[in-house]
């Protein structure tokens, strides 16, 4: 049941001072302050000291609210009471809680500030929203107030986590990015004086793009084909294909990496220059022009990455095709169009936005996956090409801590720069895909804008 509105006095009685707006403003301000304090104590344990004063402030504001409504209206302001109650309960919780919580299974300690920030955000979100809503002339009910934290808390926590992540990436990574770093290939050389190396991310950036491109090219035809087959044709074979693409998704990425490595291992018998060796292991030429086998080629990595991407594309293609309205399908059939014609001219254009979504998810997977590359990628000193040694930005992040010693020495401080670049690439992909997707939606699914 919906609770009755506590506030019904839009127009204050003549000659009386209305506290309506100032009090709502204070609620909104207090709420925002609580959210700010909550985020601060998420970032810094010391900031939990803010919790009790802010909660006391919220309590006083809500009590003022309650008494004002009571004297004006003889009604009880339940939403303010909810905020007051939450402030008291939260403050009591923080007062009885020890500073550190020791978890039996957790190899560390949880500080009270985590709870302080949860309490502050939980109180601050409904308070600030109801306050702002009232300042703007709305009349939120107690039920609305109860709903806000559920709806908005996850959003705020996710945004906060994202902000913290970005802050870390930018502060530790952006400063070290330079044009030189982006355009230099990483090299290492053994000389009489020991290892000589030059830091650089050029090959890793290009390698990431190469992996995205190759993987997409390899996985689109079978992915879209499987999606069409499963959606358009009935029968046991369609079931089998659907089941196997689903199962493909369930295989551990690590196992795919191991299988890729086993191929490399099997190819180690053939000499560099032999197509089997070149396709699987990749190659590089030394200063004297001799061909050497590398650890694993971009092509090999892309083939195995596409095992992860095909199921995603297949599923999203299938969903897109199933979303074509029945009367449009029948319209095409009734005009004597063959299945192939309808598929090309109507069904696939309609399903295109879904295909693009699948491809985007897949490309991000190709860019970010380390497990597949684990055994077959190298440090990126031999250039980029389908048959060159595979490498990528995500692999750099891994190798800065677990790679060969010279690589760690040269590149150890660039892991956040690599992460930032990876983020920029995937962000660019996302934005690009959204733009193309929107074009397809406007073009082939119709929009109110028309022309």
């Amino acid at each position, binding site marked *: 049941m919906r609770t009755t509105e506590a506030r019904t006095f839009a127009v204050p009685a003549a000659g009386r001072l209305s506290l309506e707006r100032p009090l709502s403003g204070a609620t909104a301000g207090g709420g925002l302050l609580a959210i700010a304090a909550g985020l601060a104590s998420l970032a810094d344990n010391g900031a939990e000291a803010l919790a009790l004063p802010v909660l006391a402030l919220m309590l006083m504001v809500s009590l003022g609210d309650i008494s004002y409504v009571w004297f004006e209206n003889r009604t009880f302001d339940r939403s303010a009471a909810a905020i007051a109650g939450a402030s008291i309960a939260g403050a009591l919780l923080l007062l009885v809680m020890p500073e550190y919580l020791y978890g039996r299974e957790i190899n560390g300690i949880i500080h009270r500030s985590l709870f302080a920030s949860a309490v502050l955000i939980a109180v601050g979100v409904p308070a600030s929203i109801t306050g702002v809503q009232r300042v703007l002339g709305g009349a939120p009910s107690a039920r609305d107030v109860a709903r806000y934290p559920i709806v908005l808390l996850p959003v705020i926590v996710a945004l906060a986590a994202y902000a913290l992540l970005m802050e870390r990436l930018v502060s530790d990574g952006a400063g070290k990015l330079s044009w030189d770093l982006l355009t230099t290939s990483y090299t290492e050389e053994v000389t009489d004086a020991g290892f000589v190396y030059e830091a650089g991310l050029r090959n890793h950036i290009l390698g990431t793009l190469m992996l995205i491109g190759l993987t997409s090219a390899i996985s689109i035809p079978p992915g879209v084909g499987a999606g069409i087959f499963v959606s358009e044709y009935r029968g046991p074979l369609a079931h089998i294909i659907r089941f196997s693409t689903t199962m493909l998704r369930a295989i551990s990425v690590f196992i795919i990496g191991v299988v890729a490595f086993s191929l490399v291992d099997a190819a180690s018998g053939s000499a560099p220059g032999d197509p089997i060796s070149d396709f699987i292991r990749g190659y590089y030429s030394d200063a004297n022009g001799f061909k050497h086998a590398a650890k694993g080629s971009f092509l090999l990595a892309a083939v195995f990455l596409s095992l992860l991407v095909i199921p995603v594309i297949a599923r999203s293609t299938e969903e897109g095709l199933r979303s074509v309205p029945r009367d449009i399908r029948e319209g095409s059939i009734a005009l004597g169009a063959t299945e192939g014609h309808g598929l090309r001219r109507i069904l696939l254009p309609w399903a295109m936005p879904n295909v693009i979504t699948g491809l985007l998810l897949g490309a991000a997977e190709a860019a970010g996956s380390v497990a597949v590359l684990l055994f077959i990628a190298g440090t990126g000193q031999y250039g980029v090409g389908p048959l060159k040694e595979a490498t990528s930005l995500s692999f750099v992040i891994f190798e800065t801590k677990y790679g060969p010693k010279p690589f760690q020495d040269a590149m150890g401080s660039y892991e956040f720069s690599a992460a930032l670049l990876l983020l920029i690439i995937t962000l660019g992909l996302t934005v690009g895909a959204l733009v193309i997707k929107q074009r397809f939606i406007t073009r082939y699914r*119709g929009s109110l804008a028309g022309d």
Partner: protein
Amino acid sequence: MELEMSNVIEVEKLQVSYGDQDAVQGIDMKIAGGKVTAIIGPSGCGKTTFLRSLNRLTELNEKCRVHGSVTLDGEDIFAMDPVSLRRRIGMVFQKPNPFPMSVKDNVLYGVKAQGGRGTRAILEESLRKAVLWDEVKDRLFSSALTLSGGQQQRLCIARCLAVAPEVILMDEPAGSLDPGATLQLEASILAMKGAYTVVIVTHDVQEARRVSDYTAFMLSGRVVEFGRTEDVFESAAKEVTRDYLAGRLVTAAAAVA
């Protein structure tokens, strides 16, 4: 142009069922060439199913079973390739279903789908026949979805006419249109007389009277009455037909009586 009275479609003992539910229970009907034949009847009497079995759209439903014989110009339609059958028997649906592409591409879709060349002449002629040309001649390249509901429905007729079918099936084509758009739609149906054989399903008996030469009244999957439209409307043989045309409630049991 008055065609000689030849029957284009002959239906014998047609039965259609979905699972264990019989939708059409034995229909015999001869559909005259160049004429408009209306099929009327209450909801659920099987008239749409009957219509959809004529171009074998019923086969899209896996559970659907069809028995009996239907011939088009003496040829058994169930022995024909469904795609070439549908090239000879076009269909307009209850809800306008333009494809999400331009007006021009909509009209020429069927032509291109059948391997023909979509010419400007076909485009203009089809739109003129559907009484839509004057309204869309300046927006041939706009999306068909920007047209009004009535225009979209006439576009669907034009799309159907563009492939020059012999027969056009219409499943309550005015079902979702307002009275004005309905009149324009009927104008384009009347314009087709003589050149095309039209079978139109409708639950609006006055519409059947306005556009058709022959009327069939269906009840519970059977044809209760079939004859010239003026005969059916003015001197129906069966009492249940007169009741229905007068707007009185009819029961399924009356179909057998």
